[in-house]
């Protein structure tokens, strides 16, 4: 989720219509934006797929279309400047695109919005400046021609500083440098004009080309590791600025002129739209809707519509994305839900069927069900139970309390008993749950085992009582089982048994060893069992 702070009056000025708070919220809701308005301050939550809407200008453009105030694609007038940027050996961030916007009226609103847009683009399609970084300069302070290249060392005065610093020094001491130093190693990309560095992407601009309230013309550089993303970011910044003010000029970046604001053409069959949305829309309906979604309809006939997608749209990968635009333009609130007629027979998986039956059985035997986390730690899963073994370990745990997957259930129940020492006894609890063990034979390198475990604890808890319960359960499983003496470090020797079916161990039971009770700080006897119910 991307969260924007928007000035409501500024938005309404750009939308060119008086709207109540409810109307604003409703319109934006239907355009994928969740909004909370508090007097003049709006907080907007957006999905990451529409970075062109990460500023008040972008939101206003979409609202105007949706409300029918201004429809179709904005006609972007682009002139060529004579500014040239030569791309030399630049391997760290190989792609660069630039633009100039002249005759800009630099208001507080624009500066605030531009800064927010830059930050949000860095955080989304920029992948925290790794993939894309944007720099904005006062064009009149730049002395072309420009050069973009990687250097080992270079001195300049970074934005907000008074002294010259080497690029390496910037990474070591400047706060922005420290934040993004991990993106650079050995080689440092810089943009130079006749007088030296104007930008050290993706870290910081030079102080020399700082944008001030007197700035009339803007120069924008976008660098990165992905050509598509670099151009998309530049297009979004340029289109959103001119939504308010200025004229677009290109920069000759090596052999190409940027920005490239050529809209992308795409054809959509009406039948395709209908089969996906089921709204029965005509060619004309679809054409009107797409114009309101700010596309340009080139032609519609023969059941097919050709549209141009505006250059700031980064989310259109497939014709299906245009189909969604039709649904949004139609209004999700206007779509009537229906149920299809697909006759199918429902049912539980074998695993759940069995689990459900066993759950009923345990409840009938007077046990309270508990639900515990699969995530645990080695201490609980093994150490406190005096056992050992291998388990799934997490690379990036959030806490040392939850960094592995449990391999058995009994420790989960011991933990519950431990948390309930002051509650009434007898305590009879169980869990039916999943455990994960390593298994090289599967594609995930693990096997999930559904298990049942139960414990009884009170002053006179004894093995006989539990054995009656285990046998009641096993009989209902329909198993031909055998019970043999067993040694398990968690149980008192000679008070522990294993359960076998066809000579294979499916579970065990016993009286928990007092040393283990002490590990869990328990003061009453505990009898427990554990059975694999599905592998």
């Amino acid at each position, binding site marked *: 989720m991307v969260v924007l702070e928007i000035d409501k009056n500024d938005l309404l000025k750009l939308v060119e219509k008086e709207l109540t708070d409810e109307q604003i919220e409703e319109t934006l809701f239907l355009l994928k934006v969740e909004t909370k308005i508090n007097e003049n301050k709006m907080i907007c939550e957006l999905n990451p797929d529409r970075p062109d809407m990460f500023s008040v200008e972008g939101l206003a453009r979409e609202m105007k279309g949706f409300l029918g105030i201004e429809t179709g694609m904005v006609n972007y007038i682009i002139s060529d400047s004579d500014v040239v940027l030569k791309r030399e050996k630049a391997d760290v961030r190989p792609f660069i695109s630039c633009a100039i916007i002249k005759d800009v009226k630099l208001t507080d609103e624009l500066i605030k919005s531009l800064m927010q847009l830059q930050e949000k683009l860095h955080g989304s399609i920029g992948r925290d400046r790794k993939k894309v970084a944007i720099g904005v300069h006062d064009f009149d302070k730049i002395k072309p021609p420009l050069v973009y290249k990687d250097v080992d060392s270079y001195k300049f005065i970074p934005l907000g500083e008074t002294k010259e610093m080497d690029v390496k020094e910037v990474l070591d001491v400047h706060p922005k440098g420290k934040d993004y130093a991990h993106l650079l190693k050995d080689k440092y990309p810089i943009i130079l004009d006749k007088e030296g560095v104007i930008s050290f992407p993706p870290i910081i601009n030079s102080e020399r080309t700082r944008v001030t309230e007197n700035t009339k013309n803007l120069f924008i550089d976008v660098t990165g590791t992905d050509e598509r993303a670099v151009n998309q970011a530049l297009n979004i910044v340029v289109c959103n600025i001119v939504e308010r003010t200025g004229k677009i000029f290109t920069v000759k970046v090596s052999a190409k002129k940027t920005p490239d604001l050529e809209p992308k053409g795409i054809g959509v069959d009406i039948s395709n739209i209908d089969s996906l949305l089921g709204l029965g829309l005509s060619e004309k309906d679809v054409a009107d809707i797409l114009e309101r979604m700010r596309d340009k309809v080139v032609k519609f006939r023969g059941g097919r519509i050709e549209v141009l997608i505006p250059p700031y749209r980064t989310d259109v990968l*497939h014709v299906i994305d245009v189909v969604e635009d039709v649904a949004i333009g139609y209004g999700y609130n206007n779509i009537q839900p229906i149920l*299809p007629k697909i006759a*199918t027979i*429902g049912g539980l998986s074998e695993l759940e069927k069995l689990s459900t039956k066993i759950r009923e059985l345990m409840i009938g035997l007077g046990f309270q069900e*508990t639900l515990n986390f699969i995530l645990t730690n080695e201490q609980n899963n093994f150490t406190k139970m005096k056992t050992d073994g291998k388990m799934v370990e997490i690379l990036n745990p959030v806490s040392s309390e939850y960094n592995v997957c449990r391999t058995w259930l009994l420790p989960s129940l011991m933990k519950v008993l431990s948390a309930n020492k002051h509650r009434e006894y007898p*305590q009879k609890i169980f869990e039916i749950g999943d455990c994960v063990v390593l298994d090289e034979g599967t*594609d995930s390198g693990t096997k999930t085992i559904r298990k049942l475990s139960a414990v009884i604890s009170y002053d006179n808890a004894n093995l006989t009582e539990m054995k009656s319960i285990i046998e009641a359960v096993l009989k209902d499983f329909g198993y031909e089982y055998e019970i043999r003496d067993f040694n398990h470090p968690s149980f008192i020797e000679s008070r522990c048994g294993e359960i076998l079916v066809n000579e294979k161990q499916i579970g065990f039971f016993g009286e928990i060893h007092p040393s283990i009770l002490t590990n869990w700080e328990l003061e009453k006897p505990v009898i427990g069992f554990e059975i694999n119910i599905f592998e």
Partner: protein
Amino acid sequence: MYELTEEGKDYLKDGLPEKQLLKFIETEKTIEEVSKFPNSQIATGWAKRNAWIEIEDDVVKITETGTKAISEKTPIEKALEDVDKKGDTEPDLIKTLLSRNLIKETKVKEKPSFWKRILNFLFGKKAEKMKEIAQLTPDLIKTGEWKSIPFRKYDVGAPAPKIYPGKKQPYVQFIEDIREKLIGLGFQEMRGPPVEVSFWNCDALFIPQDHPAKGLHDIFYLKNPSTGKLPDANLVAKVRATHEGGWITESIGWGGKWDQRDALKLVLRSHTTSVSARTLYESRDKPAKYFTIDRNFRPDVIDAQHLMEFYQCEGIVIGENLTFRHLLGFLKEIAEAIGIKEVKFKPGFFPYTEPSVEGYVKHPNLGWIECLPAGLLRPEVLRPLGVEKSQVLAWGIGIGRLAMAKLGVNDIRMLFSDDLDWLRKVPLVK
């Protein structure tokens, strides 16, 4: 001759339970509180019989007689002292003490005492009145003796000791209820592993490899084992081609290079949509409805709103003539199945669905809750998996918030509560 039983000795030492109860109640207490008092059933029975307490609207109050009794020695207490010292007391009180099992006949004297009782039974009117049946025994039934002896009156209003039945965990019950509804709608349960290969958790779902939601802050990656195995090479090649340039799906893809090593990483699945991907690869174009309600994992710090493990209710519907309207129809139906009438829809975004939708349900107390994310699976997901003609409606509902609303808790940790007292007392289904 008589002697005190263990119980009698205790009462002599600590006072009668009904006396102790009076001290405990002080002036008044709720039945709930009184029921927690040791031996509360005996104590309240006798206190009521003695007219020491009154029970009104679930509140137990001490009467005037009761207040007086607190400071006085009752005849029963005096009798206990007598039996302790002299081995006997007044016959009436002996009866009472015997019936309360506070004294027993001293063995040597058994016989005369027995005859004395029979005589009393036969001739003493007073004695006959006193004799009553507390516990009906097989002997009394067989001999017909019960016909001549009155039953002791039970105070059915007296608080009984609490017992706790075996019960389902309330969240499990909630999940079972949803399962039942989905089965009723014709859904078959599907299953998949909680430890998952990144390929199924992300790549097969057309989630770009550098997607921000794939970072260490959003998915648990595994240290041991760290990598898994990819499915057959043919499927892998199709997924790769789709990511890089759209393959035959008419998509332009994400561009860039798709890295097989990234797809091999093992994760704790971040959504049950991985189960849908695996299921679709099996079922292809066969019309069907599947669901799963299972656990997912995310690296969140645990607090009242966040858990590292959460249940999702995942569903897919496969069919040739399915539209977005049908998807909304299902979402509405599912909301209704869990008792929610009002639903509204907002466009949404997920890398693997288009059109996408976020359903909001209106909860009577909590207002609009955003909890029904859904969409039509993208061609970039379907074609590589071998779904060629069908549309697939898909959703992955976070049911935690709905369960909290239903159970009336506002801390999500309660869904996995280890508080036995709460588990025992929470009403199962409202």
